[in-house]
């Protein structure tokens, strides 16, 4: 199976791995923001995790210890943020931005001397024979353990937030810290633990970049993944499975554009498929927004859905099979498309729009 030089099986298997760093960091930040804290230092914690993981793995020779080192490094950096915002009540936005700058600087300093070294290989989790099964093999069984870990963490975060008492307390603290305090919950302590969790998750995500994706050490290795993770959390309306969808969408477009750069142009089939997916999401967004008073959204949704097949048919009729796109646009595509899709997903006026934790970004002090 092949679409103009692009193999969908390899593409899907590839996007699952590409998405791991963003997914892990975004899951951590989801918990942090659900507890009412806005930590803009995700990029800094990721890059410190990348360095911490790399150094640990190189010195111990164990990738597993490397990921642990990444988690510890990310959590330690987040502890600075936690101390400043939860104990000294510093502004969260400014502290988070400073944390990113600090993390980038420290990692650049500490990473000197590690350029050009190859870290120990992170092997696949399951036997080769399973990975060899056609189609399902590479997608379901061909990954290293971190990929499965990231999916398991999505399920775990979802379950904890939805069904457990700890999750309920985290949500309550993020919703109204005054009410939570009145009921006797230790607001700042709960938030501090959430911030540490977020730091550890960002650290593991960063370590995956330097140990498995790249795998070597270069300055600023995370290249903005932390910012995308932050955007995904917001546009996913703070819901873990939507975070996964957003991360995979971003990873998918990223993997695709690399393939397209290699094959020289976008095959019409793939273009139609992307348009169809975007169109479907847009249509759902429009339908959700149409109210009994404004039913005119229904025709709009139908029209949006009708566009991609139309383009496809016209393209086929004209004999076009490939569209050439400059490389710059391809590189920018994952960012633009992810943001567009997530904006649509979160734009409904229903519950999704009010999904933000009500105390997000506000410091709590018992005297006010």
């Amino acid at each position: 199976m092949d679409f103009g030089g692009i193999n969908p099986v390899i593409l899907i298997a590839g996007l699952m791995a590409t998405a791991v760093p963003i997914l892990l960091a975004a899951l951590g930040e989801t918990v942090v923001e659900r507890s009412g804290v806005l930590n803009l230092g995700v990029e800094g914690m990721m890059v410190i995790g990348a360095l911490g993981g790399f150094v640990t793995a190189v010195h111990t020779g164990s990738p597993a210890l490397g990921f642990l080192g990444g988690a510890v490094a990310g959590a330690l950096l987040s502890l600075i943020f936690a101390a400043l915002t939860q104990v000294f009540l510093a502004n969260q936005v400014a502290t988070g931005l400073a944390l990113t700058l600090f993390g980038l600087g420290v990692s650049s300093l500490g990473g000197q001397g590690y350029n050009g070294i190859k870290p120990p290989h992170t092997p696949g989790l399951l036997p080769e024979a399973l990975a060899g099964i056609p189609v399902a093999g590479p997608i379901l069984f061909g990954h290293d353990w971190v990929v499965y870990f990231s999916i398991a963490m999505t399920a775990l975060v979802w379950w904890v937030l939805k069904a457990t008492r700890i999750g309920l307390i985290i949500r309550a603290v993020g919703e109204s810290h005054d009410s939570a305090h009145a009921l006797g919950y230790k607001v700042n302590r709960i938030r501090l633990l959430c911030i540490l969790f977020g730091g550890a998750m960002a650290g593991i995500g960063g370590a995956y970049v330097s140990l498995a994706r790249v795998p070597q050490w270069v300055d600023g290795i995370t290249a903005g993944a932390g910012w995308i993770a932050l955007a995904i959390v917001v546009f996913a309306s703070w819901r873990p499975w939507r975070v996964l969808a957003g991360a995979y969408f971003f990873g998918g477009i990223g993997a695709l554009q690399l393939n397209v750069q290699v094959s020289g142009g976008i095959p019409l089939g793939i273009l139609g498929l992307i348009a169809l997916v975007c169109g479907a999401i847009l249509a759902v967004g429009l339908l959700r927004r149409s109210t009994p008073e404004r039913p005119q959204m229904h025709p709009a949704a139908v029209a949006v859905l009708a566009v991609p097949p139309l383009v496809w048919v016209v393209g086929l009729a004209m004999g076009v099979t490939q569209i050439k796109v400059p490389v710059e646009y391809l590189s920018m595509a994952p960012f633009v498309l992810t943001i567009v899709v997530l904006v649509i997903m979160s734009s409904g006026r229903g519950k999704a729009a009010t999904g933000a934790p009500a105390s997000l970004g506000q410091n709590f002090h018992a005297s006010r």
Partner: protein
Amino acid sequence: MTGTQPADSAETTARPELLRVEGITKAYPGVVANSDVSFTIREGEVHALLGENGAGKSTMVKMIFGLVRPDSGRMTLRGKPYAPAKPAEARRLGVGMVFQHFSLFEALNVAENVALGMENPPPMRELAARIRAVSEEYGLPLDPARMVGDLSAGERQRVEIIRCLLQDPKLLIMDEPTSVLTPQEVEILFKTLRQLSREGTAILYISHKLEEIRSLCDTATILRRGRVVATCTPRDRTAREMAELMVGSSLQPPERSRGEKGPVALGVSDLSVASPIPFGTSLKAVSFTVARGEVLGIAGVAGNGQDELLLALSGELKSDADRVRIDSHAAGHLGPSERRKAGLVAAPEDRYGHAAAPDMSLVENALLSGAVRKGLTRAGFIDWAATKAFAEEIITAYDVRTPGPDVAARALSGGNLQKFLMGRELMQGASVIVINQPTWGVDAAAAAAIRQSILDRAAEGAAVVVISQDLDELLEVADSFAVLNEGRLTRPRSTDGLTMEEIGLMMGGAHGMEVAHHAEA
């Protein structure tokens, strides 16, 4: 339910002692909240803690609930020393509390809110069943799956009460529970409380509403400036006697001189605006007129569109030009400053953050709303001398207790800041004045002063709209009366001959609670 009669006072004293408070003192920097407070609550007794705002009632109950620790003094619960370090400990020992400003989470559902207030909640499904069972037993029906943000104020209070009842408390503390309820809802609440009392639960009832206390409570401890000034049996005293004990002096009801109504100054016709507030209430076809010299009182339970109405009148929410007319000029499309220029000033309810910028000085706050009408700016520059003079004028005229006009608004007590903010709007010589909750959280003497100045402005020919949840206040100041219910305004009618029962019906009755109690009766 047993058929026992309400206990008489002889039986009350025979009951065993539940909580004894002895010599409790608590001081905050600059203010002594409680000084040597002592009282005793017996099992099954409804005990009132009565006092003005700032008398130390809230601090006292926070100490009983373990939110604040006393500086000195001691408490005993059933004879054993009682000093809860945190609310969880108080709950475990059988003390529950229903908060004045609800301790609820709007984006969570009823069952989750209840679970957060319990020490060891059962699994959600079991908890939901228990919420249903207990809420029906006490005539307070609740759906455990509903979002709290979608509930009315009365229903939210039910969530808090049920949360306490599920813990099987021996002492239930209720902090100003009726301020958000319709008269019918108050009746239902009282039935529930009496039922609890018969079953042996003691209730510590905090309020400054004297008639309520007379109808409900067995004993009252009256606080003034942090000290116990009297302990009495409310049924044996008149409301006036208790009020004078509470305030420490006699009170003058405001005087009103009904003048002739002038021409219509504010006309609102068919005004519908969507609410910008999450979980807010949109206004639906609101129409009314207010003439010069007239005070229109708008009642309603909190969250029925009061905030939105204020926003739509002040100009923070715009509408079509013709929907709002000030002195018969179309003003619906104007913003707040332009409306002030046209002669309409507005005072919102939320003092900290909406009516005033809390961290700015009184002078700066005076400028923020007074600049247009008082001419406090010249060629884009602030005339600080004139602004300061304006602020000082307000402070003198409204008896605002403050070290000076340059202190931050946040530093003033609620009542003093409210007096300042009322003065700021009332002293601008506007032809239309809109006020939301003029005396919320203000002590009786200050409230009387504010009401008097509202009446004075009306007598001078201003058209006044007062939005309030305090029905007694509205009946005191208003010439005509209307009710906001789910964003709709009833037809304004004269306050002459208006009874509480009629008002209750205008307010939409008891929001679906009648059924449960009919079954019981």
